[in-house]
């Protein structure tokens, strides 16, 4: 969902069924993007599962920038996942006796 004016540079995106978990991470990736002039998020009411993410850019459409930020976040998480798996495998390999006791 998107509340906005005709100005594509600034938009507020309203995500339902999300909380700090996603919103704070996206805010971080957005902040790291040089195209972003301002971004922030708020949870209008703690009982509602809803976050508002505000994005203002230096020229690009805000929706595109948000999409890129989400994409970045996804790739980061994928990298974390593979690195983590590798680390656990390495740990198990280095200590095979212990690893025997662990299921899966």
């Amino acid at each position: 969902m998107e509340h906005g004016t005709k100005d594509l540079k600034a938009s507020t995106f309203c995500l339902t069924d999300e909380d700090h978990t996603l919103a704070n991470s996206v805010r971080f990736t957005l902040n790291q993007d040089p195209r972003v002039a301002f971004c922030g998020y708020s949870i209008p009411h703690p009982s509602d599962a809803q976050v508002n993410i505000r994005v203002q850019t230096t020229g690009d459409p805000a929706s595109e920038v948000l999409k890129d930020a989400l994409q970045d976040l996804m790739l980061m998480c994928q990298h974390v996942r593979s690195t983590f798996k590798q680390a656990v495998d390495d740990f198990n390999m280095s200590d095979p006796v212990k690893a025997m006791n662990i299921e899966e």
Partner: protein
Amino acid sequence: MSRVSALDMPDVPKGQLPPHLELQRTRTENIQYSGAYASMGVDNSLRLDQFCKNFRVEVVRLTEDEMEFDMIGIDPSIANAFRRILISEVPTMAIEKVLIANNTSVIQDEVLAHRLGLIPIKVDPRKFEYLSENDTPNEKNTIVFKLHAQCKRGQPRLTVKSDELKWLPNGSEFPVATETPGADPTTRVKTYTSFSQSQDSVPHFSNNPIVPKHPDIIISKLGPGQEIELEAHAVKGMGKTHAKWSPVSTAWYRMLPEVILLEEVKDEKAEQLVKKCPVNVFDIEDVGKAGKKRATVARPRACTLCRECIRGEDWEKRVALRRVKDHFIYRVDRADLDRLSSRSSFFRRRSSICSSLPCLRMRRRKKKEEAEKEKEIVP
């Protein structure tokens, strides 16, 4: 006028931040804005390839019940997202519906149901689907347990433990009470679940039957003549709905403490410093021959940042305590540890808000009928 990034300006020095700014960036404040250091020619924006290059995971300890690992080169917002996901968004199976046929014990039905809900079940939740509101419970979304415990008259008190929960791979055994019971004996008795096949027949479960993770969790205590008979239906859920679905008992992280001796701490001062620290971060090493001593930072990881070492006169000049802002020490404990005892107080606080286990009391209609029939025969 077109905007030009400071990074593209040729006269801006590129490369390293001055030491005090580098210290601020990596140890004290976390500045996320991409252009924060643009005037210094340092790009603070996130480059995915750079992240991939710097990111590291190191497993410190890994056992069946707990894990400690380091995540290095990641931002707190994302590290925190992982922690939040571990606690509240990783699905598990937990008892959600309890059909109580008989409960003459001192523990009330709703309390009993709540306690059953907190018992961790040893099963892979990936083998199951969520039970949505309009679904009928079937073999793909429900695990059924039976509990029937009785303390006979004249016997000592009986302690009912979680190993009394017996898995019913064929689903519920309680018949649904209908208007005309037993009207049509040819049809199968309708129960509270509709399993089309036994869960036993799935190879994964026939090899390792579904049981509570720990056999020795106390559910209730029965006095002579008391009895509990019930069925517990476990479904898939997430920790954000109710803490009983949380797969971890704790998941937390802390930033790596960094203890630095700003000047050489010698002899008497070194002894003092070692004594000051309650967690033994410092060690003493001998220098030279004349029995000179010098303090070293031997175990910075043990530091709790209690600031005991910088208390008192002038110590702040000698020791610096910092946190490495992108180095997270994660600790994950599995919830399979007995939630009912060790975390009961914690849970009590939480559950007062969200304990709403649907607890159904079912008439033992069939048993009653049987008993009545027997009575008819006896005289």
